[in-house]
């Protein structure tokens, strides 16, 4: 244990994802020895983030205005919505620079153990967006784990009856990888989803 405020800092840092007790201590002492100007700038950004960043009222991605950059962009295709769990998933998909549709951020995945049910996710908001008939395809890009799959199943059961095209990104072998390094589950999925070779 350290004295007063130093311990407070370590405890606060320890709450962050991916930071354990040892890591928190390391960051705390780094901050103590760093240039006070740098530390103050970090503190200012932290305050600013909590005050200025909001969630887009359309897709619930992080935004600085009422609407995010993507929802405001008229060049984006309004007929396709890609549903993801978290804002960081939007950033990941944006990196491929291929997808020109829009997003919807659920804010998590269905997980009864953690007390997260369909009503705790932004599913009602998604259904409202589908009401005007402009959307023709929904891509369910939730994580390929049990909770993500369950969320995708739930949404598919909900959306399919409306008559929209519902798709899910393929699961399988990593590109540029070697077959022998894939685990059995991934390899099994890849075999299930095999496709005809076009020549």
């Amino acid at each position, binding site marked *: 244990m350290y004295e007063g405020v130093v311990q407070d800092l370590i405890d606060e840092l320890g709450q962050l994802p991916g930071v354990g007790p040892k890591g928190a201590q390391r960051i705390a002492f780094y901050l103590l020895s760093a240039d006070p100007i740098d530390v103050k700038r970090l503190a200012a950004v932290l305050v600013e983030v909590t005050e200025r960043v909001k969630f887009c009222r359309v897709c619930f991605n992080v935004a600085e205005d009422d609407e995010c950059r993507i929802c405001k962009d008229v060049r984006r295709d309004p007929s396709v919505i890609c549903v993801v769990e978290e804002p960081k998933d939007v950033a990941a998909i944006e990196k491929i620079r291929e997808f020109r549709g829009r997003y919807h951020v659920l804010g998590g995945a*269905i*997980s*009864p*153990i953690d*007390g997260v*049910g*369909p*009503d705790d996710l932004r599913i009602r908001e998604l259904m409202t967006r589908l009401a005007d008939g402009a959307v023709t395809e929904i891509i369910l890009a939730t994580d390929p784990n*049990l*909770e993500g*799959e*369950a*969320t995708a*199943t*739930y949404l598919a*059961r*909900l959306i399919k009856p409306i008559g929209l095209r519902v798709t899910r990104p393929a699961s399988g072998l990593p590109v540029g990888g070697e077959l022998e390094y894939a*685990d*059995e*589950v991934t390899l*099994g999925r890849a075999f299930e989803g095999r496709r005809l070779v076009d020549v």
Partner: protein
Amino acid sequence: MHLRRLSLTDFRSYAETDLNLEPGITTFVGSNGQGKTNLVEAAAYLATFGSHRVATDAPLIRSGADRAILRAVIFAAGRDSLLEVEINPGRANRVRLNKAPARPRDALGVFRCVLFAPEDIVVVKGDPDQRRRYLDDLLVALRPRYAAVRADYERVLRQRTALLKSARASGAVPAGALEVWDDHLVAAGAQLTAGRLRLVEELRDLVSGSYSAVSGNNRDTGLEYRMSAQPAGHPPAAAGAPASAPAAAPAAAPAAAEPDAGKVAGCLREALALRRRAELERAVCLVGPHRDELELSIGGLPARGYASHGESWSMALALRLAAYQLLRAGGEDPVLMLDDVFAELDSERRERLAGLVAGAEQVLITAAVRQDVPGGLSGARFEVAEGAITSG
């Protein structure tokens, strides 16, 4: 395959021990509480990355130490492999194969063994979960992909149970929420059930052959896998008098073709629909492979409750011997380990078991009294006393 070397560091009662082993038979003799079983447990840990005696790793660490290390040189397919496991209670184990870090999942199957232990009697006499565990452990050892299926199924079960519990507490299920978990329970459950059904078919004749060989009599043994979701076409034979059910079962078995995962999925769906209300009332998952039973019978009577102590032991040994034969058919001979088993058997059963295992590539035997081990099993002998092992 066989073990060439086994070293233990801070494992159970052993601070540091290093054993050179040979193919054939090796016997460890010592009074109770000297550390014989700990040796066998260490070897078995290398095959499954879990103990057959305790559910958590903490008791495996010598008191005062913060981690245990197991090392083994395994000779298989003409070459030596070095497998090292660092057991860190509460954290992930570190595994190295031939000095390179490996994922535990990938190192499963490098060492394979079949362990006969006094605890085996509960497979016959205990609750159904013991028999499901016997099937699942063997299934994973034979076909490693089932490790993932089993883990998936357990996770689906936990999620679905959590949902049922919260639904009971709040008095309502969000529309469509349960159906999602039904889909996943059916998908994973059908795969696991189909794997077990296939395994039971493979085991049936081997168990009956092993039972005759161990017990010396020709009483029929039966293995029937009973799904909690009975197929609609096969009403449960146990509907009438429970005692007469297993007698009828073996006759019906050849007619029933091995159901594939698709058929099982259909049964699970039907059963889920039927039990929905009960599930919501009790907030428990009532349908699926976690409620299934492997019914064992001897001479037409259920082994559990009817069989004598000797018959139960013969059945327990027959299940292990059948597992050994199945694993052996898949390639390399697994190592056989008999932990204090001879003390449980009468002299005829001892001699017959000795005859059955004598030809295995490597057999490790522990006994409290040297005279318990049949004379036919000669080979290297070690004395175990207070955690020290000396050539005897």
